[in-house]
């Protein structure tokens, strides 16, 4: 079953295959292709790029309209290339598409690896709280509070820089608002267009204070192609001048007077947020170690749960009556037959619909533990069934009761048989724990994601993170091998 660290591997590969950062001839590429290929992530959601609720096979959003308008100026059609949002910049470096256009904020780190167009939208950050909230009136009241935001955004970096809030980082735009409603967090701090689309219409939520932290949405362009970036900038300038941009933003409820500044050609004076300086790896290590600590904590707690509950399932299956046995069988089949990721989603985001709202750590341990319990129970069952029937006969003939036979004769023998596979399972649970990042837990892989995206050090941090995982899993592997050898001898 082991779920692979797809993202991690992907990024390491991206890092290894990245082409040198000088490119040219993008315009010719576009003409040859007959289309403008633009990278975006429809999973990111409204109002940027998202599936039309009425026609889910159609993508809509203000950036779809913008891409169409740019393509039209280039005399071609636009085609969106679906890419995980956080991989947009590395994917552009690999030239998976011609431009990346998806609410990408101008930051100093990113501008080192790709070129940026002039801005096409001036955004701000909006703080959102529950309607009945009266303590938090603006960002000044956030000290000591738990605040949700979107992974790898400027908003996240702004909150991190404050240092006085507990950060919950989400992969999607909807989940933070949902957790806010469920009182799992105190406030949400995200880009204004997102707040305008998701939070403004929700009667249970309200804006707290005016938007702050002005920033620029820019189009990411291949590094070093001056001809192409000049052309794109000219197109953006024209689209503003002829009112096309304003029309698009008005259509999506995003127009405001700030956008008037878009006509200016120089934005260098604008107070855009820059995440910081180019740090050495040593700066990131403590953060990664903190994530590693969470990984260890969750893995151990989940494995303990898996072993205890797995044993209960096995005994129910072997000794339970006609009613309980099928329940145990069904449990194993359901937990093994559905993805762990889905189970985590249901436990954390789904259960609140029936009134069960668990905190993220509990949900993570429960999700991993209950899932692995199914595997453990199968290992235990196989272990028990591997004991020759004669052992049972001999114990029975000595007058032992059924439970006594399990407790004194079968389980002690099975324990030796199952030790190596259980250790192996612990290693794979340890790696699968990276999946809990989807419920806003910052463990090792999540820490890596966050740091790599903000620093663009995908390769260096990826190798460092991989090394940390290995340092934790190798001792387990060695232990497993030793156990196997030890048992083979005895």
């Amino acid at each position, binding site marked *: 079953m082991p779920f692979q660290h797809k993202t991690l591997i992907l990024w390491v590969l991206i890092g290894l295959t990245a082409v040198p950062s000088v490119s040219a001839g993008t315009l010719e590429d576009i003409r040859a292709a007959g289309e403008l290929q633009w990278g975006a992530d429809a999973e990111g959601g409204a109002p940027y790029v998202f599936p039309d609720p009425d026609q889910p096979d159609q993508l809509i959003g203000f950036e779809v309209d913008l891409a169409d308008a740019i393509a039209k100026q280039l005399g071609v059609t636009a085609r969106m290339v679906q890419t995980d949002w956080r991989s947009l910049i590395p994917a552009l470096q690999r030239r998976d598409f011609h431009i990346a256009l998806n609410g990408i904020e101008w930051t100093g780190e990113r501008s080192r690896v790709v070129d940026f167009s002039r801005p096409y939208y001036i955004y701000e950050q909006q703080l959102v709280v529950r309607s009945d909230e009266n303590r938090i009136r603006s960002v000044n009241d956030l000290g000591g509070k738990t605040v949700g935001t979107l992974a790898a955004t400027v908003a996240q970096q702004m909150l991190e820089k404050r240092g006085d809030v507990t950060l919950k980082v989400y992969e999607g735009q909807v989940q933070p608002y949902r957790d806010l409603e469920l009182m799992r967090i105190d406030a949400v701090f995200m880009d204004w267009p997102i707040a305008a689309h998701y939070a403004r219409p929700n009667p249970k939520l309200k804006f707290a204070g005016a938007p702050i932290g002005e920033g620029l949405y820019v189009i990411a362009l291949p590094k070093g192609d001056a001809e192409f970036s000049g052309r794109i900038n000219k197109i953006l300038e024209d689209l503003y001048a002829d009112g096309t941009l304003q029309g698009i933003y008005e259509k999506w409820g995003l127009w405001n007077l700030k956008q008037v500044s878009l006509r200016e050609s120089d934005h260098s004076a604008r107070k855009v947020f820059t995440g910081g300086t180019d740090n050495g790896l040593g700066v990131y290590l403590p953060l990664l170690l903190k994530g590693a600590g969470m990984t260890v904590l969750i893995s151990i707690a989940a494995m303990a749960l898996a072993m205890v509950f797995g044993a209960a399932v096995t005994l129910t299956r072997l000794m339970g009556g006609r009613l309980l046995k099928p329940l145990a069988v069904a449990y194993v089949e359901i937990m093994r037959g559905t993805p762990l990721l889905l189970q985590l989603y249901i436990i954390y985001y789904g259960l609140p619909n029936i009134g069960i709202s668990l905190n993220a750590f509990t949900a993570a341990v429960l999700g991993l533990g209950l899932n692995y319990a199914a595997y453990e129970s199968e290992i235990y069952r196989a272990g028990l069934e591997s004991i020759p029937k004669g052992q049972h*006969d*001999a114990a029975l003939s000595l007058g032992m009761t059924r439970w*006594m036979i399990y407790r004194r004769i079968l389980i002690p023998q099975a324990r030796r048989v199952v030790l190596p596979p259980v250790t192996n399972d612990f290693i794979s649970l340890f790696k699968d724990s990276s999946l809990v990042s989807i419920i806003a837990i910052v463990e090792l892989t999540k820490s890596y994601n966050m740091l790599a995206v903000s620093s663009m050090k995908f390769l260096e941090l990826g190798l460092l993170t991989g090394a940390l995982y290995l340092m934790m899993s190798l001792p387990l592997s060695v232990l497993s091998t030793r156990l196997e050898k030890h048992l083979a001898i005895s």
Partner: protein
Amino acid sequence: MIHVSGITKKFQDHAVLDCIDLDLKQGEVKVVIGPSGSGKSTLLKCIGALEPFDNGSVQVGETRIEGPASRSRSGSDQDKLRQIRLSAGMVFQQFHLFPHLTALENIMEAPVQVLKVSKTEAETTAKKLLQQVQLGNRADRYPRQLSGGEQQRVAIARALAMNPKCVLFDEPTSALDPEMVGEVLSVMRELADKGMTLLVATHEMDFAKEVAGEILMLDQGRVVERGTPSMVFGNPSEQRTRRFLHRITHR
């Protein structure tokens, strides 16, 4: 001591045991012979309450169980089956010692767990029994560190530790190398001499001649011939018995 009446066990339409009668008085030794698959092992397991049967009855000591009840899950029937298991010790062809326990622990396990005898008392008894089977110096060995013959003698001591009223031996020497058969048979002989009630399934004809009061010849789930050793071995009335004895003595 053992009273088996009309015991029948079917597997689908095939009768594994077909209406077998058998009686053992206190101190009697009887031997069951017959080709493999004739039902010897099943008969012993039914008497020892390790396998259910369909018809007839088994009585060991004071406890009697009918065929249908041997499959029952009711508390009172389960108690009866357990009572029979406690009365009848069992020794298996493959020994079935508990591999995770030492020889001494194998013998102590059931007295401590089942009879709730104190550990010190169980240990004293276990050591005495090990002496009795000539294994006083093997107490702390694990089964894998013992020879087959030694393992079988520990298994006999394990059965005796429960103070059974009789002991059922299911081909106790068939899995042993020839040089180890003697040591096990001599322990069994000793038991017989002490007046223990024994029911033995075996191919050891010399042992049968010497110790058994009666020989039962089983074939296809039926008793085809029974009588004293001199009758069965000396002058078998059945063709099947003759053929079987010929095969056994000329292998």
